[in-house]
Every structure is written in structure tokens, then in C-alpha cells.
């Protein structure tokens, strides 16, 4: 590993970074500060600090802590948590400070080491002299007949065919060939570092120029105002979004299958998006603002439950309509109340499908009220109850609202660029190595030297194969 270490950082002792001792001189202090921010130990320390402190926010509820939680902690503890910003710790001053230090650390490390790495790439050692040869782990010496110029041409063709196009240098009658593969892989680490900065920039852009909001729209109505998720501040959209319809469907198990809203966008009096269905995982974007299906519920206004009541002994059925919770008198003198209704009952009563209502019937002159469920799809079901009155549910005209998350994030593409850079950088840093081969042609001797900055065992195999091929020539 020693080899790799020195090769990557390219100085003899990168860890003992200059004069760490504080001197009274300004320059000494600045140097010490610079060295501090360049140090790898700081990087490891910050990574471990970020990892351990991040745990706090996963254990303590973030945002407004629920009262149940507050009851479990003492007053003193609450005050400490509050003071340390534990209820919004990822935005607390000390966590942000850690992130800033982390950023400065990354930038400083890269500024310090990048020029040296760049020099290895842009100004490669073209000549393998005797002292340089000794530093290489892989070398092989051949005796070869022929004059230097023809050997040079032969070797040039060999390297070009088997490895990479070489650069030829002539020095004191000797020819030096140098060829390399993927020198830019050395930049992988810096690409990853850059990607983190890019992601941070994207996140900042999003927080300054974007917003996260939500809005509830009742079916058949529209809105041009949404509310920020933090603080319920109203935000003007500049256009109107209408919810034409909301529907929820269920699996046979009663688990939800799909939440779907039909949205229409009206901009400047014109319908620009007409009844576009949005579901979870398929949002609608208009003018950089995206609407996500998030929740739903009964609008709780103007809804009527419709029922049909008939007597077991015969007679004309009676149609009834009543508001949720409203009580009404029935033909036989008893009274009924519509307690609640659902568009889809299978989530509560898995054997049944479709709409249903729970009603309560109180016998004439008081007595024990009876509550039961009636179904729209099973009109004969209530007959099995055996009572004198048979109820059928005919549905409701209760409106639903659709709950939408609304987001505008102009920084998101910057974040994705950063993410792509990170993946590319990781692959460059971990799976590619800078492979170099030198050939020296000297009076009937051909000497091969090779080095790779990563995965030496793998390169050794490639180098040995190269030597074998040369032997056969």
C-alpha cells in the first residue's frame, strides 16, 4: 500500500503537514490554519462527526415534536434539546457549521493536491533513467540484436499494438519510449469532491429560489394559491389548477391500488393542460412547478347520503337524503341517522366492494339504537338483518378533496449533475488506474518498466503478459 499512498498524494509525507506548531507570526498562523484544513485527519474526523451527530435527528422527532413525545422527556431535557436545536437538528447552527467545515476541508484538500496530480498527468516522466528504474516495482531486461533505430521502431510498433501509442525521446544515443493508459483516472477523487460541492450548490439554489408547498383542492374547484410546508405561507402560482375529479381504487385485499386526480391548468384564461391524470409516481409539471398526488379526504361540505327504505311487508320504497350526522324520521315512526360513508368499503370490510354507509336506527319512542352498514352494490343485503325496515344505500354526492404536494426546485438539475459526477468519479477512482510503461533501448539492451497507481496485482499480470509477448518477437 505504501506505493499507492505515495503515488496518489505525491509527496513524501502528506500527513505531517509542514509546521503545525503555532507561531506568533501571522504567516505561521495562516500556514497552520491552511494545513489544518488540508489535513486528512480533519476529513476523517468530520465524516465521523457527521455520521454520529446525524443519529440524533433520527431518534428525536424533527419539526414540531408531538405532545406524546414531550411527555416522555423531562422539562430540563426539553430545554437542553431546544437550546441545541435538536428538534430541527439538520438545520441547526452547529450541524450547518459541520457541513461548512466539511466543504472547506474538501476544497482545501483538492487545491493542495490537485496541481501535483495534474503535473503527473500533463508532464509525465518520459525517460526511464537508471535511478528512476530502481523506483519501479516492475521491470524486465532483454538482450536484443539490431541497431538502436530499428529496435526503437520495433518497440514503438509493439507498444502501439499491445498497450498504447508511445512518446519517443532520444537522449545520449539512447531511445526512451513512454506510453500510458487512462491517466485521467487519477482525477477520480477530485471529481467526487467536486460533485459534493455541486450537490451543495444545487441544494442552496433550491432553498433560495424554490419552495415546497401543499394544497388541498376540492373536486370541481380550482386554486391559484398554494401554502408553504413550513409556516403555511400562501404562495401565488400565477395560474390556476383545477381538480376535475379524484378517485381511489382498492385491491381485493383492501389495500389501496391507485390514487388519481384529474388536473386542469388554466393560464391567462386558457386551458393549457386539460384533465391530465396524476397518480403517485406520476406528477404534473407546469412552468417549473410540479404537483404530486399526496393525500385525499372527504371535502365535508354539501355532501348528501342517499338511501332507499322499504317495509318488509310491502309498499312503495321511500327515498331519503340526509347530511352526515343528520337525523330523520322514518315511515314507521323510528328515526335514522347517517353516521359515515365510504366510497370504497373493502378497506374496512374486505369481503365487500363499492360504496357503503354506516347508519344508526333508533326505534319509535326511544330504546336501544342499532348501528349497521348498508351497501350500494348489495341492495338485498340488509334484508338478511331481519328487521321490518330494509335499507339500501344509493351513494352520496359528497365531494372529495385531493391533497397535492407542490414543489418548485430550480436547483434539482444541478443536484442531478452532481450525483452523476459522483458516480463517474467513484468509478474512475475505484475501478480505473493510471498504467504507465517505459521502454529504454540501449546498445543491444531493451528494458521494460511499468507502474500503476492502483490495483498493482492486476497490472502485474498485464505487465507479465506484455513481457511474454515481447519475448516471442
Amino acid at each position, binding site marked *: *500500500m505504501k506505493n499507492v*499512498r505515495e503515488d*496518489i*498524494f505525491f509527496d513524501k509525507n502528506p*500527513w505531517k503537514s509542514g509546521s503545525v506548531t503555532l507561531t506568533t507570526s501571522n504567516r505561521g498562523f495562516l500556514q497552520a490554519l491552511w494545513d489544518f484544513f488540508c489535513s*486528512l*485527519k480533519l*476529513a*476523517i474526523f468530520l*465524516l*465521523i462527526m*457527521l*455520521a454520529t451527530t*446525524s*443519529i440524533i*435527528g*433520527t*431518534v428525536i422527532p*424533527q419539526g414540531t415534536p408531538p405532545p406524546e413525545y414531550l411527555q416522555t422527556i423531562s422539562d430540563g431535557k426539553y430545554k437542553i434539546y431546544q437550546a441545541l436545536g435538536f428538534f430541527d437538528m*439538520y438545520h441547526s447552527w452547529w450541524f450547518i457549521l459541520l457541513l461548512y467545515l466539511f466543504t472547506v476541508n474538501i476544497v482545501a484538500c483538492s487545491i493542495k493536491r490537485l496541481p501535483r496530480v495534474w503535473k503527473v498527468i500533463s508532464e509525465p516522466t518520459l525517460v526511464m533513467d537508471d535511478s528512476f528504474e530502481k523506483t519501479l516495482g516492475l521491470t524486465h531486461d532483454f538482450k536484443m540484436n539490431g541497431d538502436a533505430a530499428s529496435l526503437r521502431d520495433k518497440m514503438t510498433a509493439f507498444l502501439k499494438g499491445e498497450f498504447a501509442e508511445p512518446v519517443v525521446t532520444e537522449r545520449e544515443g539512447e531511445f526512451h519510449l513512454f506510453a500510458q493508459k487512462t491517466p485521467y483516472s487519477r482525477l477520480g477523487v477530485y471529481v467526487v469532491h467536486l460533485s459534493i460541492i455541486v450537490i451543495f450548490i444545487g*441544494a442552496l439554489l433550491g432553498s433560495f429560489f424554490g419552495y*415546497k408547498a401543499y394544497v388541498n383542492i376540492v373536486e370541481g374547484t380550482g386554486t391559484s394559491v398554494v401554502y408553504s410546508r413550513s409556516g403555511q405561507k400562501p404562495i401565488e402560482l400565477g395560474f390556476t389548477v383545477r381538480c376535475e375529479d379524484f378517485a381511489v381504487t382498492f*385491491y381485493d*385485499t383492501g*389495500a*389501496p*391500488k*391507485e*390514487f388519481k386526480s384529474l388536473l386542469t391548468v388554466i393560464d391567462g384564461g386558457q386551458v393549457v393542460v386539460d384533465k391530465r391524470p396524476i*397518480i*403517485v*409516481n406520476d*406528477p404534473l409539471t407546469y412552468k417549473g412547478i*410540479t404537483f*404530486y*398526488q*399526496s393525500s385525499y379526504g372527504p371535502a365535508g361540505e354539501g355532501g348528501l347520503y342517499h338511501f332507499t327504505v322499504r317495509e318488509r311487508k310491502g309498499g312503495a320504497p321511500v327515498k331519503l337524503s340526509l347530511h352526515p350526522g343528520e337525523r330523520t324520521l322514518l315511515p314507521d315512526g323510528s328515526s335514522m341517522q347517517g353516521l359515515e360513508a365510504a366510497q370504497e368499503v373493502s378497506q374496512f370490510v374486505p369481503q365487500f366492494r363499492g360504496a357503503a354507509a354506516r347508519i344508526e336506527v333508533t326505534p319509535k319512542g326511544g330504546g336501544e339504537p342499532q348501528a349497521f352498514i348498508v351497501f350500494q352494490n348489495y341492495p338485498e343485503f340488509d334484508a338478511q338483518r331481519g328487521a321490518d325496515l330494509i335499507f339500501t344505500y344509493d351513494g352520496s354526492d359528497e365531494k372529495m378533496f385531493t391533497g397535492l*404536494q*407542490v*414543489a418548485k*426546485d430550480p436547483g*434539482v438539475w444541478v*443536484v*442531478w449533475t452532481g*450525483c452523476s459526477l*459522483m*458516480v463517474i468519479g*467513484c*468509478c474512475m477512482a*475505484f*475501478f480505473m488506474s493510471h498504467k504507465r510503461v517505459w521502454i529504454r533501448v540501449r546498445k543491444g539492451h531493451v528494458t521494460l518498466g511499468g507502474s500503476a497507481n492502483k490495483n498493482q496485482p492486476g497490472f502485474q499480470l498485464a505487465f507479465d503478459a506484455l513481457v511474454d509477448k515481447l519475448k516471442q518477437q
Partner: protein
Amino acid sequence: MTSSMLFNIATFSYLISMLAFFTFLAVKSKHVGLAGSLASYFGFIVHTAAILLRWKESYDMGMGHAPLSNLYESVVFFAWTIILIFGIIDLKYKYRVVGAFVVPFALLGMAWAQLGMESGIQPLVPALQSNWLLYHVITCFLGYAAFAVACGISIMYLIKAGKEDSAGTTQAGGIISMFPSIKILDDLNYKAIIIGFPLLTLGIITGAAWANYAWGTYWSWDPKETWSLIVWFIYAAFLHARFTRGWVGKKAAVLSIVGFAATIFCYLGVNLLLSGLHSYGGGG
């Protein structure tokens, strides 16, 4: 033949494989070691067939989704990825004995899933109905599996380093003699982690992309997200520690084990102990 039967055969194969590797440590016979590897490969093939069959079964039931949607399916997939990464390392580097410390993780997962979990195929809830599910789960679990292998190797490292310390500078005997040298273990640990780290990175990125697509926020400091970042920080620290004096060897091995403990917490602890958006994996 149902997928459930095939999963049982795979589980049994991993049991045989683990026992063979343990025997291999004791009797040092090459054939026993080979038997351990072959048993795990056989199990892997059956396991693969079982996952594909379960996928098909979900289509037959009219639900049609990749078997990656709940705790049972994820544990089964996790075990599969562990054997996959072990197989790659076994075939590439030929340190068979590593199996004794890695196959048990897969066996544990399979045994837990087969014996202790509800294994019925359930339809996908709306939040999971996305192609991101496939990309996100596969990258995350391949990463987790690489970390599991690294953890097994680090345990070997600590056992071997500990024995060698107490036995002085001489090579320790007994079961430990079958272990690769600590230098090789250290290198294998690193190799497993450089497989895992980019995969975890991709897993976090695909998760963020999916969250952005489904909810409009790529990062919301949800416990699952935060724990995945914690894991990422730990392995990032590991990768940097390798270039620092005093952090190689034992400390690196400890960091690798801590990293895997955090990985397991990120995977299971968050769902079972904490609350958050990522609730599909819980209970199961």
C-alpha cells in the same frame, strides 16, 4: 414446484455450505472447501430460480411486480446478493475460507425469512408502483451485501490479528492457519468496500431521484435517508482512513464492522424501531 419450496432448498444448501466451510477450517481438506463453495453456488442457482418464479407467480396472481416489495422479499433478496458478492470474491481471489464468515449472514437471512415471516405475495401500494423500485432496491442491496462480505472479512482480520498478537510474531496455528494473511484480509476488506461504496452511492441517488419523482423532495432527512447517509459517511471515513497512518489494519477492520452494523440498522432498525416515510419494509 412453488417458489417457497425452492427458497427452502436454497436455505438448506446454504446450511450445508456453512457446515462444509466450518469443517474446512477444522480438517483443512481442499475438497471440503470446494464442497462448501459448490453448495453455496447450487443454493444460489436455486435461489435465483425461486426469485424469478416468485416474480412470475405475482403475475399469475394478477399483481405483477418484482419480488422486492416487503420485508420478506427484501431479506430474501439481501441473502441472494450476499452469496452473489461472495461468489465473485471467491472466484476472483480464491480465498475460500472467507465463506465460513460470509455464508452464515445469508443463511441467517434466509432462515429468518422462511421461518419467521409472512411470505404471501401482496399487491404494490401506490408509492411503490415505479420502475425506480427495481433500480433503487437492487443497487442498495448489492451495496449492503458487499459490506456484509467486508464485515465477515474484517471479523477474520480481527481474530487473526488478535491471535498473532498473543502468539508473538510467529504464525498462529490451528483453525486460524487456514486464514489468508492479515495483509490479504486487509486488502480484501478494502476491495469489498470499493465494490459496495459506489453501489451504496447509486442506491442513495436512485432513492433521492425516486423521492423527488414521487413526493417532490429529493432529500427530507427522513430516518431512512439519514441512516443511509450515516453509512455513507462511515465508509467514506474508511476509504480516507486507508491513507492515514495509524488507521490501517485493526482500526480499519473495526470501522468496517461498525459500518456494517450501521448498514443493518439502516436496513432493519429504521423500519422496525423508528418511524418515517419508508414504511413498506416494516412488519411485512
